[in-house]
């Protein structure tokens, strides 16, 4: 059965809408306000990051946000507790590193997500070959697991990734970690194009989609975009409303 996130994304895509999934680090000061503002500004789903001590896929902005959230006392349990009360009317996903799941236990973590009203997970250090124990527990609990595809993947790998993906396929835009770049990398469109050719699951480009213009460029090929560092920078510098205003600007650009 298709899950809540994938159903929502497919329905919106079918209606001709480009998909926008911003990321917010859970536990940061004002993070719940940011989630509400971003939802109101036209996000189609939101990724909530559970901060980890060793975020190897993240660049300086999200590293800093993670460190600040942890120093503020945030834990996976406290963030999921706070998520339960959000009620923003769009699907919520959790972005976490695998040790957070491994340490809690697969079934227990899946249950915690269900209780918190979370629809899906993204686990950037859990590649296809290691994903079975988590995906089995997640499938059983009705939690969708988004899979990552990277520009380095040979052609034969992409259909296997797409077949395991629930919610959407995360098309990694460039060779590198999260963070803003001056231009959208050429790899962003080429990988998204390769994925669109082999799967019907929504394909969203993330990592290095850094502003409204780049988002507009990305959705010429992909079904949508994931945006993280550019959102967090605004949240850290100017607060939740600024993050919401930014998402409204991106929304307008990709709709136009």
């Amino acid at each position, binding site marked *: 059965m298709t899950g809540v996130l994938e159903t929502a994304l497919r329905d919106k895509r079918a209606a001709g809408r480009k998909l926008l999934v911003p990321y917010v680090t859970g536990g940061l000061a004002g993070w719940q306000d940011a989630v509400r503002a971003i939802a109101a500004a036209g996000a189609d789903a939101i990724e909530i990051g559970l901060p980890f001590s060793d975020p190897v896929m993240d660049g300086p902005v999200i590293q800093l946000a993670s460190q600040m959230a942890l120093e503020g006392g945030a834990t996976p349990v406290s963030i999921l507790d706070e998520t339960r009360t959000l009620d923003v009317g769009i699907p919520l996903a959790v972005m976490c590193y695998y040790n957070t799941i*491994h340490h*809690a236990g697969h079934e227990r973590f899946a249950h915690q997500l269900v209780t918190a009203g979370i629809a899906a997970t993204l686990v*950037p250090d859990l590649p296809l070959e290691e994903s079975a124990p988590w995906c089995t527990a997640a499938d059983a609990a009705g939690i969708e697991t988004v899979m990552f595809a*990277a520009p380095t993947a*040979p052609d034969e790998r992409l259909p296997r990734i797409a077949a395991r993906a629930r919610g959407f396929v995360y098309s990694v835009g460039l*060779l590198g*970690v999260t963070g803003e770049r001056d231009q959208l990398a050429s790899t962003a469109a080429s990988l998204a194009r390769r994925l669109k050719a082999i799967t019907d699951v929504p394909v969203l480009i993330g990592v290095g989609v850094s502003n409204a213009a780049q988002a507009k460029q990305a959705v010429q090929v992909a079904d949508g975009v994931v945006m993280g560092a550019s959102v967090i920078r605004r949240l850290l510098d100017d607060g939740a409303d600024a993050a919401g205003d930014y998402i409204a600007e991106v929304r307008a650009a990709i709709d136009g």
Partner: protein
Amino acid sequence: MSLMAEPSATGRFGEFGGRFVPETLVPACEELEAAFRDAWADPTFRADLDYQLRQYAGRPSILTECANLGNHLGIRLLLKREDLNHTGSHKINNVLGQALLAKRMGKKRLVAETGAGQHGVASATAAALLGMECKVYMGAVDVERQALNVFRMKLLGSEVESVQSGSRTLKDAVNEAMRDWVASVETTHYCLGSVMGPHPYPWMVREFHRVVGDEAKQQCQELFGDVPDIVVACVGGGSNAIGIFSGFVDDRTRLVGVEPAGGAAVGRGQPGVVHGMRSYLMQDEYGQVLEAESISAGLDYPGVGPEHSHLASIGRAEYPSVTDEEVITAFQLLARMEGIIPALECAHALAWITREAPNFPGATVLMNLSGRGDKDVAQMMDILAR
């Protein structure tokens, strides 16, 4: 079959190991595994590496009988002198292997992490020898306490980046080296410095250090016609220990890996996943990785190589810990009684031997003296002046 055979197809040693990396790096790990498998079976590659180990690194390293300290402790004490290798530690064995392999794979650039600086210096050395570019990531705390090694790396033509994130020690240097590799994977080889990380690193690095155990076993045979009763080595990630253990794992020899009390992954950790592997890991109740803290930068690592976790879980090797105070005493003891200044890392192994010797009188004990102490002299000067 040997207890230290090839890991499973998914890179497992028992329930430990694996390949928990961002998707971007999966093809690179697969390519590296295939290239290593091919090279390791190729007599030409083996001959090239053997040539460099002999004429450049100075292998074989000797076995030194420590009669003074041995008599003092009531045991027979032998040291495998990896400190006499070029660059001053065992690290050169692995680095020459990986650099030759990287070159064979057509990579032009190395990135490496370093704690005490020994692996960074070895990587910078191999890069200079083979005409490759090299960038070394080192925690800001370690840059400060190992200034001499930072300068050595720069002299050798490498770039050294001081890592300011997290605990600013070895674990954060690994994170930063992995981030570099995610961005540079097409031209760059990640020259990982220990038997850790994603498959195939724990296996490949062990194979490059196997020479330590193989030589030591032959030297023991020649010296006294038997294997030692006990083999002891310090353990951070665990590369020097795995190297010497590999020579004796299928014998009756007792294997002891000594961890610092402030970085006892096996002793105080639980299974966890970080840096591409499932292994024992010091972590809090939510799985956040804890910061290791010891006198020795090279052992300040909250994890341990997955094969050590396996050897511990099946009871084949044991992993006790020693305190900084015991290490400081052992460091001075070897200097005064044998005229050998050990690296602070190996002083951990000696600290365990001196503490436990009354429990095994007359035993033949082989210790891996994996590095020389020159780099630690300034730090010891400060400590002993207090």
